[in-house]
């Protein structure tokens, strides 16, 4: 994520957890099929069980930036007399998503191991006696 958008999201008070992974989250949602911006936000909220309740206006600049980077592509349709932009993953986007998933898996495994070791120590004394 470039520093300009990063600073902007930071200025909105978006948590570092979401801010740092917004690109990957959006790619993961779009992996399920083409969606428009509002549906992306709804899907993020639904999949996270309401945990990721993003400021809705923040997603669109991120979508534009992903489109500029070639990770997603868009097309326009007309629905109920309104123009609607539909986003879908490109081949590069799928590859980027796979990379994000692998990186997150490594991070989650490593963090989980550290937290699990600390929990054991808290429950039964130091792990090494």
């Amino acid at each position, binding site marked *: 994520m470039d520093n300009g958008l990063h600073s902007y999201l930071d*200025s*909105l008070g978006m948590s570092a957890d979401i801010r740092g992974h917004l690109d990957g989250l959006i790619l993961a949602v779009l992996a399920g099929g083409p969606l428009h*911006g509002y549906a992306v936000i709804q899907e993020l909220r639904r999949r996270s069980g309401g945990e990721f309740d993003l400021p*809705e206006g923040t997603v669109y*600049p991120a979508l534009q930036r992903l489109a500029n980077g070639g990770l997603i592509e868009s097309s326009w349709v007309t629905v109920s007399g309104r*123009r609607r932009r539909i986003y879908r993953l490109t081949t590069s986007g799928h590859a980027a998503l796979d990379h994000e998933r692998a990186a997150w898996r490594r991070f989650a495994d490593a963090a989980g191991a550290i937290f699990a070791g600390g929990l054991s120590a808290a429950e039964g004394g130091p792990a090494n006696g």
Partner: protein
Amino acid sequence: MAEHSGAGAGHGPIELYLTSVRAHLTGLPTRRRARVMAEITDHLYCAAADLTDDQAPDDMRAEAEAVRRFGAPDEVAAGWLAVHAGDLLRRAVWTWSCTLAAVAAATMATGAGPLLIGGLVNPAVTIALFVATQTACATAAVAACLVWLVRRSCPTHQDAVHVRRGCVVSAGALAAALVLRVGGVLTDHGGDHGLWLAGVATCAGIAGAGLVSTVRQLRRAVSLTAAIRSLLDYRPEAPRTRALGVAARLAAGRTPRSRRVALLVCLVATRVRDWQIVAATTALGTVAAAQLGAMRDGLTPSLAAHGSLRAGVLVAAVELASVPLAAATLLPALGWRLLWTDGIRPRRQPG
């Protein structure tokens, strides 16, 4: 381009919100702004429709809630401008680089021969014209370094626009110089003056575009009628005209016509942008450089006849002075301040 459906048309919360966002997005190109507004409109009406079913039984409350959840207009616009700033800068750098490469290739292809145009023989004028050429070339070189230095930075939208304008001006001036050069070479070899005239026309076009843009900005920025009325009454109210009021007071006691003239001069002086000055001066300098090319050969025999060493030292000193002259007069219009402000580093608050 239709930006909203018939549903909710009028002055409901969504319409008012869209008007506010549109005003904050004036930095975006027209087509992109229309697409952004279309997306935001679609989102808000979708959100309002969902809220009408769930949490806000009436349309107005649903629209108000949808607007609240979307975010403050200035913050939403700032996000878009932040994305656009990067695009702007990258396109400007590529345009500039391609133009520079084309000019360099064409210069090498046509050789380094002088432009045989004009009939000036005055050495002082020749030196002045040569300084103009050196200034333009030195500025082009420094600008090239600058834009490559900032291309990976995260500028604000205003900074990106600033650099883009500088790149456009420099690219246009170089293109005009190229046309002049090619025209001169063809002229030297018995060709017609068509390309030379095209180069002059290009330079005039650049200056004219700068003038038109200045006038348009003046019309948008200040109501001229209101400004004249308030300043002639010596009661400036708008912040923009406050400084102009000082200048108008300096003309107090003179005729109303002279006060109006003073007002208009101050209005232009405070609103014209650096890059517009660059457009005019670089264009004039480029035209003058065309004359210079013809005079270099004429100058050398004159120098030989009138003490070449002293004249040569003078010319060399003038050439050396032209480089800081270029930096002092033209770099501000090309975004030099980015190197000394935090504009080249990630900012906390874009826009």
